[in-house]
């Protein structure tokens, strides 16, 4: 039984990171209806910035994490400013394509640094002891990762529900023209959405970097694996992102725990999320928590 629970716990740990990464997608989608394909690259950038600050500049690690979040915040904001601002009003397909282009551009920029081809790992700053209960163990790194994720997701939900900026972001997602007419600056809201997404991406990058080490390929692949999570959750729901993230995390653990090694199967954790996604989409075309809009004609 402890095997089962260990899988569940590991699944939740991985899943909560998925949720945090998915949050970045949701933030951008909610306000501008754009799916940011380059999010994995932003996550990687956030993680690498944190490493560069601590490993090369020598800033204490906690501060460098915070700094990387701030830097990525502005980085994402300027990405929106430079590349996406002009595309407001263009068809969504071209905006999504721009994010695909951005993905390549950021890839290229990362290859300029050693991060493109060398593995790094964050210095450890948390206790090495394991936290164990009933045969289930979790490391401090993972625990802190989950806690940070929970805090950030909670913070963002609060921000969306209560703060003025959050409310204006929701308004923009609802109706751009109407929000313009009540004096909300739509471009500013888009910029902010990207910026906050960048912030959450940096946090996610930091956590993944601590758990797995900094490898560009892993981080890129992570950015892709988040897609099924986002879609499963329903693109515009923070709650959906959390639930779907944890579902996917647990499913992946179960897949490698129960499927791999039996019946000649291997690496099922990589493909199962997509299969499950397809099946769920057949029954719930808007994900688990996505808004199903009634089409008016």
């Amino acid at each position, binding site marked *: 039984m402890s095997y089962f629970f260990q899988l569940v716990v590991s699944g939740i740990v991985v899943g909560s990171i998925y949720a945090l990464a998915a949050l970045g997608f949701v933030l951008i989608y909610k306000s501008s209806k754009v*799916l940011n394909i380059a999010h994995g690259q932003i996550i990687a950038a956030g993680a690498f910035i944190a490493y560069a600050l601590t490993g090369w500049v020598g800033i204490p690690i906690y501060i460098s994490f915070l700094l990387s979040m701030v830097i990525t915040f502005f980085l994402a904001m300027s990405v929106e400013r430079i*590349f996406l601002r*002009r*595309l407001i009003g*263009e068809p*969504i*397909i*071209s905006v*999504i*394509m*721009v994010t*695909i*282009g*951005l*993905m*390549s*551009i*950021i*890839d*290229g*920029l*990362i*290859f*300029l*640094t*050693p991060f*493109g*081809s060398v593995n790094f790992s964050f210095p450890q700053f948390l206790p090495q002891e394991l936290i164990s209960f009933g045969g289930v163990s979790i490391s401090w790194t993972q625990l802190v990762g989950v806690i940070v994720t929970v805090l950030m997701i909670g913070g963002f939900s609060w921000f969306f529900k209560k703060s003025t900026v959050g409310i204006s972001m929701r308004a923009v997602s609802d109706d751009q023209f109407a929000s313009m007419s009540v004096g909300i600056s739509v471009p500013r809201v888009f910029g902010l959405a990207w910026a906050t997404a960048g912030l959450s991406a940096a946090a996610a990058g930091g956590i993944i970097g601590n758990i797995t080490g900094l490898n560009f390929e892993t981080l890129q692949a992570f950015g*892709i694996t988040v*897609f*099924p999570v*986002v*879609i499963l959750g329903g*693109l515009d729901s923070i709650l959906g992102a959390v639930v779907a993230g944890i579902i996917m995390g647990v499913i992946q653990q179960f897949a490698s725990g129960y499927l791999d090694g039996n019946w000649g*199967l*291997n*690496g099922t954790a*990589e*493909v199962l999320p*997509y*299969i499950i*996604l*397809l099946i769920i*989409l*057949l029954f719930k*075309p*808007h*994900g688990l928590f996505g808004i199903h809009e009634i*089409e008016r*004609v």
Partner: protein
Amino acid sequence: MSTNRWLATGNYFTSYQDEQRLFFTHLDRTILTMFLLLLFVWPLLFTLSNKYMLVIDNILIAVVAIIGLNIVTGFAGLISIGHAAFVGIGAYTVASFSRTLGDSHVIITHAWPLMIVLSGLTGAVFGAIVGLPAMRLKHLYLAIATLSFQMIFTWTINFLEFFNQGQTISISRVFWFTGKLGRKDHYLFWYYVLLVVVVLSGFMVRNLLRTRYGRCLSAVRDNDRAADAMGMHPGLTKVYAFGLAGFFAGVAGALHAYVYRGVGFESFTLHHSITYLAMAIVGGLGTLNGSFWGPAAIITLELQVETLAEHAGQILPSTWNLATALKPFSFGLVIVLFLMFEPRGIANWWRIVRSYTKLWPFRY
């Protein structure tokens, strides 16, 4: 009909059938015929190195694939982030024959035109299956469904023993009337095959686009509710778009398998899907001639950057990383710049050039 059939100075149509013509003047037709003739003749006049023959073959393969992608993404407006997987389906159709029958079985070496068509049909079937969610899914959800197909495809190839677990499955050299093709003629021979395929597909799609089979694609792109009210099933139309795209992708895949004489999963990854999308965008989404410009532009760019990288590497050895980083960077930059400043792609430049020459000197 105007009396001067070479330089029409205006619209002299007297029947609706007149208006359907692809070439409005003899001049247009002659220019295209000459151009095609040139494409067929130049290899006889001078020989290109194998590298560049391979590059040209590669461009033509991509053209066939992009014609397919343009149908689904350009005309029908359904983002497909899994086009490389469809190309892969085509390639692996040939590969599975090679796996079961041996790589130099008669079917593969002699009946290769049949294999190419068969791969196209397999691609079409898979395209239609993947398109099935389009009956219910819209927009991004559909795009991610195609992404899922890409991932599932890669995984399946990579883990199934039958597909040699993603390792190269070799395909033998084919036979022509002159006998088995040698290494020397290989790329040239496939250049001609590809050229024929491209020209045929080009005309086929050009014709389709001016019939109901093409119009319905733009209809579901622009407004699928209205399309529904016009008496077409929007879901089935989308499935059909995916099927047609799958066909061209499958053909491209089979050609890829033959040209490279082997099939390995590395040529059909997500990265390739994205490259195909980039080609379609740079060429011009929703235009037929964009399907030719896109691959040519992107592959040329890649080569240019490679050369640049090499020069930089020779002059400044320490800039190796700078030089290689240029590749993805320039690739991304080209996509972004095109979308920002010329969202209609190179096809739009072509349109401008054409309309300019049409007015020159006195045509109006």
